């Protein structure tokens, strides 16, 4: 009995989890912050829509009124930014970033996309991202960075002149912020759909294996 337990523990130690603990924590904190920011952001957007034809039903927004939505938005932004810094720093320092996401070529993306659409893409090894996954995750990381930078340009358009000009001025920064949000929302829809198709991937993001 004693031996079996020790053996099991040794085996568990030898095989590292598919997702290390720090990755699982930063993933869920990021998901929580992004959700709060998106729902409260919709309420803020509605106060003065950038695109008059696009209004988001207030029933699916967060905050109750503009003031409340702003409070949620400017609270969750700290979580998103600091959690994002921890995620990027640990990813780069541990070498996980290079190992997981590269090499990545357009040809591989096309190949895996066709395989996925014809139902031939293997999900046997969740340790290995396929090329479409690599592209999607890299994309959402960059999109979140654009969201933070355009958000800063809107929030502090006077204090960060370089950022403001990079976005093409205060008004255009709002368009960039909205566009990046829409792309993030599209990612979330696809991401959640994929998790529903391969439920095991949800387990690995929760318990690591």
């Amino acid at each position: 009995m004693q031996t079996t337990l020790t053996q099991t523990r040794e085996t568990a130690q030898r095989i590292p989890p598919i997702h290390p603990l720090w990755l699982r924590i930063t993933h869920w904190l990021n998901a929580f912050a992004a959700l709060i920011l998106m729902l409260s952001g919709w309420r803020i957007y509605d106060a003065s829509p950038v695109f008059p034809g696009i209004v988001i039903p207030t029933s699916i927004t967060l905050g109750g009124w503009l003031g409340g939505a702003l409070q949620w938005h400017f609270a969750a932004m700290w979580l998103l930014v600091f959690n994002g810094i921890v995620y990027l720093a640990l990813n780069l320092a541990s070498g996980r970033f290079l190992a997981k996401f590269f090499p990545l070529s357009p040809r591989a993306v096309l190949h895996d996309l066709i395989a996925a659409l014809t139902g031939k893409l293997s999900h046997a090894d969740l340790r290995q991202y396929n090329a479409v996954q690599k592209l999607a995750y890299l994309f959402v990381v960059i999109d979140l960075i654009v969201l933070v930078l355009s958000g800063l340009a809107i929030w502090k358009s006077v204090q960060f002149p370089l950022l403001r000009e990079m976005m093409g001025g205060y008004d255009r920064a709002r368009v960039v912020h909205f566009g990046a949000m829409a792309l993030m929302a599209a990612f979330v829809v696809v991401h959640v759909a994929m998790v529903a198709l391969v439920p095991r991937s949800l387990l690995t993001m929760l318990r690591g294996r």
Partner: protein
Amino acid sequence: MNTNDRKIMKLDRASILADARRELDMPSRRLFGKRMLTLGGLSLLTGCSITDEDSVNTFLTAVSRLNDRAQALLFDPKRFAPTYTEAQLTRPFPFNAYYGIDDVPHVDGGDYRLKVSGLVTGKRVWTLPELYALPHAEQITRHICVEGWSAIGRWGGTPFSEFLRRVGADTTAKYVGFRCADDYYESIDMPTALHPQTLLTFEYDGERLPAKYGYPMKLRMPTKLGYKNPKHIVEMFVTNTYPGGYWVDQGYNWFGGS
């Protein structure tokens, strides 16, 4: 120590007490860490009513106070808001208030007196001709509303820092507060009050400031959001006691910088 010094010390003690009492009323800072941990679980448990939860509101208010301090740190007194050309003016410049345009207050310029109070040593009552005689400055700047829209306007008046020096304001005090003819009230931090672009405005687009834009005067700050710019000002005071503001007391962020 002369009488004057003693008086100022007394005022400071009173405002420190007021600040401390406010903090005790809002024990949010102590609960800050705890709320951070429980916010996630709470939001999942309470579903749609999360914004009505007292503890969540306390937490969000505490973060808003934290954001005041973060913005005060980010604020660079030498950083100028961008200025624009006449061709870029937004016409017509939008009217905006917490009431409709029909309820804009009527202020009689002849009877008008601006009252200055609090931590000032100089002239405390000003007529409009006296104010109009002060050094003149103009700016074409962007007004950014908390709602997200923005509009470019041309404003004329006197630099506020210059006015504060003229009334002998204690510029080491924390706040300048404003009371307005439309029952609006607002307060700002001293560094912003002293910013070179903060303008006590008597004119819009080269004309006497019309009632809809805040006759007889508006404090124009291109470094702050629209709601921080009080109109129809009738009284201002320099103080170390946090005065709040019309929207701020309902949940808008106090610093409201851009």
